């Protein structure tokens, strides 16, 4: 993890700016959202998605990046600094996630919050795996996840992660980039709702 800043002035250069992936995920999230939803966005970055969401009961974001947290707070967004959703209870009916996805080797790893926001580990899938394992703690039994996945992360390997961690999945939106990269938004739901 990059070093923590000592000051409390956010540096916009240390926060991921909205791009095609952000716009695609926002569109999919707004197609999915219902007015009664309690919404969590994991890793809000610039807060562009949460700021442009259709009205819902509650919208809350997390980010580990102190610059992103400060920027979100100045925009009036509900923000908690935590890793994924670790400091939250099982409360959310819709979770939105745009994972860091650039395949990054340990040698390439930088000491910078923006690079950290892009770092997907050696195969680009580390954050996807960590998210899927941990998000079940905060997702309602009938909750849904919308998540952006790039062809750089390998779709079938990501689908394997979804299945293995207990989710059903469908592709709800897709976009081809000029350089041949394909972006998809997956919707995940719990495979087995817990019934006691």
């Amino acid at each position: 993890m990059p070093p923590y800043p000592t000051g409390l002035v956010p540096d916009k250069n240390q926060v991921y700016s909205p791009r095609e992936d952000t716009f695609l995920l926002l569109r999919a999230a707004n197609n999915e959202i219902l007015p009664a939803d309690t919404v969590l966005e994991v890793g809000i970055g610039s807060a562009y998605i949460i700021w442009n969401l259709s009205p819902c009961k509650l919208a809350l974001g997390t980010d580990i990046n102190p610059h992103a947290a400060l920027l979100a707070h100045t925009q009036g967004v509900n923000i908690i600094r935590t890793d994924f959703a670790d400091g939250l209870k099982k409360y959310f009916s819709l979770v939105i996630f745009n994972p860091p996805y650039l395949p990054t080797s340990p040698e390439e790893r930088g000491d910078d919050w923006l690079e950290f926001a892009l770092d997907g580990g050696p195969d680009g899938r580390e954050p996807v795996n960590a998210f899927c394992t941990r998000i079940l703690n905060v997702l309602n039994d009938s909750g849904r996840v919308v998540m952006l996945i790039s062809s750089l992360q390998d779709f079938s390997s990501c689908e394997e992660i979804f299945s293995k961690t207990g989710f059903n999945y469908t592709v709800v939106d897709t976009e081809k980039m000029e350089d041949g990269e394909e972006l998809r938004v997956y919707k995940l739901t719990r495979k087995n709702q817990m019934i006691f």
Partner: protein
Amino acid sequence: MKRELNDILCCPVCKGDLELVVTEENDVEILTGALICHACSVTYPIDEGIPNLLPQNTTS
């Protein structure tokens, strides 16, 4: 952080409930304070209106 958010926060380590201690609050939200996990004996700070629920041994 808005006061009502306290109900959906938990200790990021043990997932237990947190005690909210408010130092400074305005009409909108809690600006400065702490979230205390008694089970872990850890205090998570609220600064500039933002609760910090990162494990406290890795932050300064």
